């Protein structure tokens, strides 16, 4: 296997960071179940997917999660947090 370049779209950046993905995009404030945005908002979905694919051509640091703003989404949801061990 030669290896295939990957990019992840995540709505749980803190949880995702533990897995150290090669490249990842976090659309800021999108809720779980809305990785690309809301239903039938095709322009928004296109923006998110273009940005995710665009990370392949950028000089991102392996393991880095890039946060982008998408005001058209119109909501902000706190992302899930990792459980702190005490």
């Amino acid at each position, binding site marked *: 296997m030669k290896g295939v370049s990957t990019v992840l779209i995540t709505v749980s950046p803190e949880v995702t960071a533990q897995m150290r993905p090669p490249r990842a995009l976090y659309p800021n404030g999108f809720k779980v179940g809305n990785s690309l945005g*809301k239903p039938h908002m095709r322009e928004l979905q296109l923006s998110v997917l273009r940005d995710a694919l665009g990370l392949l051509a950028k000089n991102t640091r392996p393991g880095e999660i890039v946060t982008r703003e998408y005001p058209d989404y119109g909501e902000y949801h706190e992302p899930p947090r990792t459980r702190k061990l005490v």
Partner: protein
Amino acid sequence: MTISRKCVPFTPFESSLAKSTVALVTAGGVHLRDQEGFNIADELGDLSFRVLPEDVDSQRLMVTHHHYDHTDADRDINVVFPIDVLRDLEAEGFIGGIAKKHIGYMGYTMQLKAMYEGTAREIANEIDKGSRADVVVLTGG
């Protein structure tokens, strides 16, 4: 081969998007309506995955997953599995093409080792053989 817990398995991208073929792999529990759904009755999760064809009709896809609210995906599967969005990007020339197959699995498991060492490798092999993908876009829920 054991993957170091400290290394990031980074594959460089040395082509251009306009010449690249893209596959989708989603942990969002996506499958065809006529494929067997994921086993949500097993508290340990379901380690299997479904192969979705290149020409899949997004209206024929559904979600079986009980660890996120997939109400929006039920209305428009593209919010977790952006196959129609990818087709738009192909039409506008942003990407070169769409892979021959895509993958759906249920990204919830209590069997992390089996998922990491078994399912993940099987999915990678499935993509590697015959999908013609240069790039994979991964999504969760």
